[in-house]
């Protein structure tokens, strides 16, 4: 057998290299360029939140909140953020019993998903049984006693307690066909909405194509979230924040969401705040409440020391934080809530909310029993540039009054673990939001049912406060959701300095001029389908 010589080897390497290069070039050239327009109205959208799965019941993906309304539908959906008015989707109308504990839903009798399955009462029951058996939806399921089929297209929900927003919580859940296969839906969803997913690369790109055979043809019943203006929507997931404005500027995308004010201003805004030529800038108030939670678990030095908590609040200059961290694109808060919620009381804005006062902060620190420099606290947050800047500024503010602050940021996974470990932190820089009401946020985070710490139910700040829990329970019922009760809770939280609202931000989206207006959905995210295209 002929031995391979060194020269042969070098030749083989050369040929191999050339061959590989040629193959790569050919295979790449064979790939398609971006979808040709072929007369279809196509938009390309950049999304800065990851979408790893397209399952209907994946809870913690902010990116999914933007796109889900294009291909999943519930029985009903709110008409707008935090509203009580529900508009038809798969359900045509619903009736409440006199006591409000029975909901009878009549569905449209011509609903079909993109696989051709008819969606009827059996599918509603299947969906609810699936969610119940999974055990992961207890926060809603615990209010439902039964779901019963009354006819092919009629179902009845029996609930055991009236809670604020309970009808929307129950009726807006997505409905899937009883042939649902969990794994398949994660990447190849069967759609009940106006678009179908024609391509999905998890965490990279999704292509939606308008479903020309969509079941809902009666315009008066089309929810604003389900308006389909574009024929094809390509969504590119751009998790690298520096790439988002670049992708828009280079023409790779037509619209992007989730921009910071600094990016929007630096790339797409004139000095007077107007959009530069060739672009449209959209802004709206975010529902996220940025706040500091005080550790009130039994071991914490903040637990029985209101004066120390007050000293911290007085030491922080909220106005300057908004300027320094957000370049002014935000508003300071006067409660644990923001003005986007319907139950917010604008009268609170004129009252003192521990407004910045160094002398008062020093006096409160002395009242708390500490000399300057004697107390050191640990503040944690999730890794985030905005929070990082804010934490650094707060460290300076607190040092002025004599409180030492150690700041630590954790990635999302670690943060989710450590925020429930009350031995890890004294102050938690956090954000919360909700689509129902401000009091619903109090309900989720300030009652003693939020977490368990040392076998006791506690709130987000490790507190087992029965009095506050009872007050929040009451204010979160339709009958108890009165201005008086809301005020009572607000002042209790404020006077006892349980949690301190810092600021709310503006959200930004930017498009080129192929898009004339964006649609902000009922969760305050941009949904591309109903965005208005320029002529």
């Amino acid at each position, binding site marked *: 057998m002929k031995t391979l010589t060194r020269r042969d080897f070098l030749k083989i390497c050369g040929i191999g290299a050339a061959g590989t290069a040629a193959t790569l070039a050919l295979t790449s050239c064979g790939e398609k360029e971006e979808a040709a327009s072929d007369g279809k109205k196509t938009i390309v959208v950049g999304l800065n939140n990851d979408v790893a799965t397209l399952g209907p019941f994946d809870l913690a993906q902010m990116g999914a909140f933007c796109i889900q309304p294009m291909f999943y539908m519930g029985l009903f959906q709110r008409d707008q953020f935090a509203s009580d008015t529900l508009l038809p989707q798969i359900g045509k109308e619903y009736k409440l019993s006199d006591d409000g504990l029975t909901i009878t839903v009549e569905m449209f009798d011509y609903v079909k998903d993109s696989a051709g399955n008819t969606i009827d009462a059996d599918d509603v029951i299947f969906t609810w049984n699936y969610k119940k058996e999974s055990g992961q939806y207890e926060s809603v399921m615990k209010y439902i006693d039964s779901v019963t089929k009354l006819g092919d297209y009629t179902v009845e929900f029996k609930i055991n307690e009236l809670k604020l927003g309970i009808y929307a919580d129950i009726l807006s859940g997505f409905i899937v066909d009883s042939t649902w296969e969990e794994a398949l839906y994660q990447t190849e969803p069967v759609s009940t909405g106006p678009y179908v997913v024609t391509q999905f690369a998890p965490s990279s790109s999704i292509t939606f194509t308008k479903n020309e055979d969509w079941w809902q043809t009666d315009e008066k019943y089309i929810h604003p979230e389900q308006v389909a203006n574009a024929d094809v929507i390509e969504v590119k997931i751009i998790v690298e924040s520096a*790439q988002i404005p670049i992708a828009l500027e280079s023409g790779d995308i037509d619209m992007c969401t989730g921009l910071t004010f600094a990016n929007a201003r630096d790339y797409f805004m004139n000095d007077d705040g107007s959009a530069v030529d060739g672009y449209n800038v959209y802004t709206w108030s975010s529902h996220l409440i940025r706040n500091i939670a005080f550790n009130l678990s039994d071991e914490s030095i903040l637990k029985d020391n209101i004066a120390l908590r007050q000293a911290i609040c007085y030491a922080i200059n909220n106005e300057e934080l908004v300027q320094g961290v957000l370049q002014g694109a935000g508003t300071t808060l006067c409660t644990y809530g923001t003005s986007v919620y319907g139950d917010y009381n604008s009268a609170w804005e004129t009252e003192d909310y521990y407004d910045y006062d160094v002398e008062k902060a020093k006096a409160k620190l002395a009242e708390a029993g500490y000399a300057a420099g004697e107390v050191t606290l640990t503040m944690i947050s999730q890794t985030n540039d905005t929070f990082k800047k804010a934490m650094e500024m707060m460290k300076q503010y607190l040092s002025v009054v004599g409180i030492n602050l150690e700041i630590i940021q954790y990635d999302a*996974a670690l943060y989710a673990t450590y925020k429930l470990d009350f031995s890890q932190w004294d102050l938690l820089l956090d954000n919360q939001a909700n689509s129902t009401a401000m009091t619903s946020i109090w309900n989720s985070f300030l009652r003693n049912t939020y977490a368990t710490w040392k076998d006791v139910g506690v709130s987000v700040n490790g507190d087992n406060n029965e009095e506050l829990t009872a007050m929040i329970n009451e204010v979160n019922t339709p009958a108890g959701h009165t201005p008086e009760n809301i005020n009572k809770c607000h002042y209790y939280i404020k006077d006892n300095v349980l949690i301190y609202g810092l600021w709310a931000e503006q959200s930004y989206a930017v498009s080129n001029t192929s898009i004339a207006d964006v649609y902000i959905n009922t969760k305050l995210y941009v949904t591309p389908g109903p965005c208005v295209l320029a002529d």
Partner: protein
Amino acid sequence: MGKYILKRLLWMIPVVVGVAILIFTILYFVPGDPARIMLGSSATEDEVNVLRHTMGLDRPYIYRLGKFLVDTFLRIDLGSSYMTKLPVAETILDRVPNTLKLSSIGILLSVIVGVPLGVNAAVNRNTVAGDRGPMFIAMVGVSMPSFWLALLLVVLFAVKLKWLPAMGVGSFKHWILPAVSGSFGGIAAQARQSRSAMLEVIRSDYITTARAKGLSERVVIYKHALPNALIPVITGIGHALGNMLGGSLIIETIFGIPGMGMYMISGVNNRDYPVVQGCVIVLAVIFSIVMLLTDIAYSFVDPTIKAQYAKGKGR
């Protein structure tokens, strides 16, 4: 030689099993609860506990490790992603071509550009145009972070000149910026490696002899000197391919390329253990194979090594 290859392939088994045990143990002890991440911060303790039980996360370490090893190595099943519920092996197979394509183009660029630069620098040593200039650029290239170069290239070629797309996959053009920014450090490293290897060789007696025979400089350099300087260069290529496979996650994230790196990053962020474990095992196998091919390549370049392998004295 066949015996040697077989021996090396068998050695890969304990190496990959060791890597699997190590990555499983690290992930087990790293704080962060996948169930909590999947359900979000407003989920109740009960909801999280139910999901943890469903996912088997409440089982003891030794049980989970045993199950993982049996599934991976006896059933050849890398499991399913917690997030997408899709088989990890299937997803890796979908994504690995993008990563391999990126790495291969990067390596090709490193070799095609880096090696001639290094050879030229050695032959023209101490000249500004041939040696000091390119070596200065190589020094900058080695020192420059790839993500920073990537963003600069994007701003220049995608935003200002509009010649190339800023991100995504599709046509050949989409691969140019990721490959260049990913391989720039490799080009620089190859140039420096080739230069020093060539400098060793061209001072040898047999090169003087070749010149004395009246051979042209081109023949002396490319026929007599270069092949003998290739061993450290091949070593460098092997390591560079490994580094590119492992380091592709930065480039893939910046350019939105759905490859293994991006998959692994999302797995790490979501504490999606099967994804991270699967990717690490696949990378370990690929890296082991690359190292084996590197060692085999030595034997073709250096007959003395081949003789050692043949006698069974090789590693």
